């Protein structure tokens, strides 16, 4: 899933005929000033300013300001831009027009195994979260589209009446079109409000798209935001850059404060290794994974980052019996990085635990074992040792 920030998210909704408030994404208060000279609404309307970054709890952090005039909006933009939250610097704010309204509604489309669910509630904002039973849904099989009658029935079921029934049905129909054509995975408009002219407006949206479908959407020129509620770290971004270039995959997520570093192979096995660490009361310093027979240099970059994690005591070089990842070759990359890290003093007091099988496993494991002669604290096990036993040993040997 790829999260899209509010600005480009609103852009997609507009593309599919949904009404959104006027908005502008700016990188400086001067830019806002210039825009105000061309756009009347910036001078006339009550404005909302929000940090345009992948951040949770923006309200709490003071990164959402409401009820502003242009002057106030410029001041708010100036104050927010350049602020740092953790590793993230705020580079953009989104300024939007407040829409006077009394009622708030909820419309969403969510991917399901068989297709999608269209979800509607006649309450919105925080109210819908505490009244989840008021969300009514209508399932659509993949390849189909919901009929007008079905959507009107859904609106009725959700408690809408009068002319709101066709309006909500039409809104849901367009949101579904957007979802279906833009390879959506989750589109949530909360709240949907009615403006003075009686039209439904998408006030705030969560937009999750299928990043794998980017190849058929040339207009997806926007970057995807981190899904974590935090920005990616420099090391994570470096590994992602390598990942995008190579056959197979290398992945890294850093977890501050942990002492057990993970360097396992395989998307499936890596999670079992993490589970084992948690089950034994260990603290994960990261999540990592390499698979699909990546080149040795890519694994070397990943290993280099893992060795550089602060305060680590153990490194778990785990892995199942590979189908086609060459153990000797990928271990070659790991060994190179280990040697460099050791020379740089990064592995002082760090114990390394290895378990692996697969093509050329004998040579790969022998090469790891030979690191003992170079003064590494390393224990090497083959396929006869059950997958996660090295975690038990690492965490038992206090």
């Amino acid at each position, binding site marked *: *899933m790829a999260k899209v920030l509010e600005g480009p998210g609103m852009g997609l909704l507009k593309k599919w005929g949904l009404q959104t408030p006027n908005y502008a994404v700016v990188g400086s208060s001067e830019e806002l000033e210039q825009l105000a000279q061309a756009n009347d609404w910036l001078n006339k309307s009550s404005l909302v300013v929000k940090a345009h970054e992948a951040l949770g709890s923006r309200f709490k952090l003071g990164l959402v300001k409401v009820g502003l005039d242009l002057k106030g909006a410029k001041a708010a933009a100036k104050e927010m831009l350049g602020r740092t939250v953790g590793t993230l610097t705020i580079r953009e704010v989104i300024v939007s027009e407040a829409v006077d309204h009394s009622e708030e509604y909820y419309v969403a489309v*969510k*991917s399901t*195994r*068989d*297709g999608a669910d269209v979800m509607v509630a006649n309450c919105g904002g925080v109210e819908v979260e505490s009244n*989840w039973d008021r969300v009514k849904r209508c399932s659509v099989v*993949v*390849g189909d589209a919901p009929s007008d009658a079905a959507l009107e029935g859904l609106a009725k079921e959700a408690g809408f009446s009068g002319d709101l029934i066709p309006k909500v049905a039409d809104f849901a129909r367009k949101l579904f079109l957007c979802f*279906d054509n833009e*390879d959506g*995975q*989750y589109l949530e408009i909360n709240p949907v409000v009615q403006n003075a002219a009686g039209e439904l407006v998408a006030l705030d949206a969560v937009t999750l798209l*299928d990043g*794998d*479908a980017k*190849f*058929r959407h040339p207009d997806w020129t926007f970057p995807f935001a981190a*899904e*974590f*509620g*935090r920005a990616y770290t420099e090391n994570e971004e470096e590994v992602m850059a390598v990942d995008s270039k190579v056959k197979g995959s290398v*992945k890294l*997520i850093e*977890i501050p404060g942990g002492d057990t570093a993970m360097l396992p*192979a*395989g*998307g*499936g*096995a*890596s*999670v*079992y290794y*993490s*589970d*084992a*660490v*948690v*089950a034994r009361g260990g603290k*994960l310093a990261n*999540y990592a*994974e390499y*698979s*699909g027979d990546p080149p040795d240099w890519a694994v070397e970059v990943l290993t280099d980052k893992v060795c550089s994690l602060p305060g680590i005591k153990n490194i778990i070089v785990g*892995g*199942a*019996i*590979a*189908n*086609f*990842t060459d153990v000797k070759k990928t271990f070659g990359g790991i060994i190179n990085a280990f040697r460099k890290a050791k020379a740089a003093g990064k592995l002082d007091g760090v114990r390394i635990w290895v378990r692996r*099988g*697969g*093509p*050329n496993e004998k040579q790969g494991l022998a090469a790891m074992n030979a690191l003992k002669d170079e003064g590494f604290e390393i224990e090497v096990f083959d*396929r006869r040792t*059950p*997958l*996660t036993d090295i975690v*038990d040993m690492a965490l038992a040997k206090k």
Partner: protein
Amino acid sequence: MSILATKETHVVIQGGVAGVNAARRMGEFRHMIQQPLNVSAFVYPPDAGKTNEVVCGNRLLTIPVYKTVAEATANHPEINTSLVYIGADRAYAGAKEALDNSGIQVVSMITEGLPEKDSKLLGAHARKLGKVFNGPSSIGVMSAGECRLGVIGGAFDNLVACKLYRPGSFGVITKSGGLSNEIIWICSQFADGITTAIGIGGDAYPGTDYVTYLEMFENDPQTKAVVIVGEMGGDLEERAAEWYGAKKRRVKLLSVVSGFCQESLPKGMKFGHAGAKEGLQGEGSARAKSEALKKAGAIVPETFGALGPAIKQTYEEFVKSGEVKPIPDLSEAEQPKLPRTVEQGMKDGDILVAPLIKSTISDDRGDEPLYEGYPASELINKGYDIPHIIGLLWDKRLVSKQEAEIIRRIIILSADHGPCVSGALTTIIGACAGIGLSQAVAAGLIMIGPRFGGAVTDAGRYFSYAIDNNMSVDEFLSHMKKNVGPVPGIGHRVKSLRNPDKRVKELVGYVKSLDLATPHLDFALEVEKITAAKKDNLILNVDGTMAAVLVDLGFPVDSLNGFFVLARTIGLIGHWADQKRQGSRLIRLFNYLVNYAAPARREVPPLK
């Protein structure tokens, strides 16, 4: 018995290099179970009409490549399964093409990063047609003793270690490719091995879920238990639990689910496969899945590590109840083996191959060439020069400084002789006709023969003959006249006593200034005295001089023409490059340079 991939499976592989690699892995499996290859064809439009080579046992098979699935099935009606190895942007169309083909019942896709919508559409389409769409991102399907689809199972040694040459009693379904192999191994070590192992792919919405395969296993009497390796996210495990709990099932179900670490991770952090994402309302957690499976009566070990002992216990119960009869293990000698390559056999020291050629001068097998055993870089660094390399490669010896200097001078003196001589002229004509360097230079070299530059070897041969037989000059000349003809190395087209060849003078002068015994050169100069006295231009020419000197240095007679060939190649390359540089146009001889001596125009008589 097995499911999905069986003895009757015949495969078309859609894709390029990755597909060919998969076919090779499948070939290894077929060799192990001593069956012919079950890959009938490839579909890969860029290579349509070509063939791919796949090793099966000790045979190299050529498998045709087609443009479309329809062409493949028309030519190979036995095909009933397609393996899709196509990039994510074209995979949907490829899989759809296969599903829509009436002969194909199973489509398994290894492609990763297929858009979710495409996967759902393919899954729904397959279900509508009553077919199976497995994957995407599936490592493949392995049915022990019967069929391998894709690379699942890994290297040959692993196939044997996991006893995949014969069926066991356990079915396996996993999302993870790496773990499928791990479970196959565990089943073979803690129990009697697998019937079929299926990688369904790690995506959120795989084309086929656990339940479909559980139903198939339930109907396969050979399968006594099924192991599911689950992951957090989605609801596939819950649905499997629901299926298992719905009524009494013949198969036993064992399962582990990953993702417990999620509970202690910072909020919002998720890892693993694309499918391992938390449901938006918190459903699909590892704990919820484990609980559901346990409640349904499945055996759910606490950790992955405990899965092996759980499988063992289940197996032992089967044995005790008589449901399963233990299969005796094959001894080391009975186990299937891959035919070894000649290289491997030689490495192991138990194969002797009669070599085709023998080389005594150089060896390229290390990190740099060895000339007569000396590393090239060391020769450079110790100050050796090109004449020394000539000595090593032509006469298998390190020549002295003095000898090297003579060789150097010979090469300088004979590197070129202008554009008019046969060799250079031919190269120039070639260059002007647009011929490439190596061909045009080779054309010039072809001119080197008895009348141009190629008399060095023969001159050396006869001067040696004279010296070896202690002949006088007169004896030599009458021997030559009687048996050979003109003396090679004597005579010049334009040079003469009055117009001496400066190159000869220079070389003779230098060699004679050295403290060096030169019997051949001395003899040649004596010969010249007699011949030049008879006719002005019967002088010792440059070929003859070189020959005499080089024989004096001890170079083998057969190598002597090489000095001229080597030296003149420098000039010929120069002439070719010179013409190229000038952009010379095609040339032809002018009419007036030809004496047209053929009969004048006349009438052709009627054909008889």
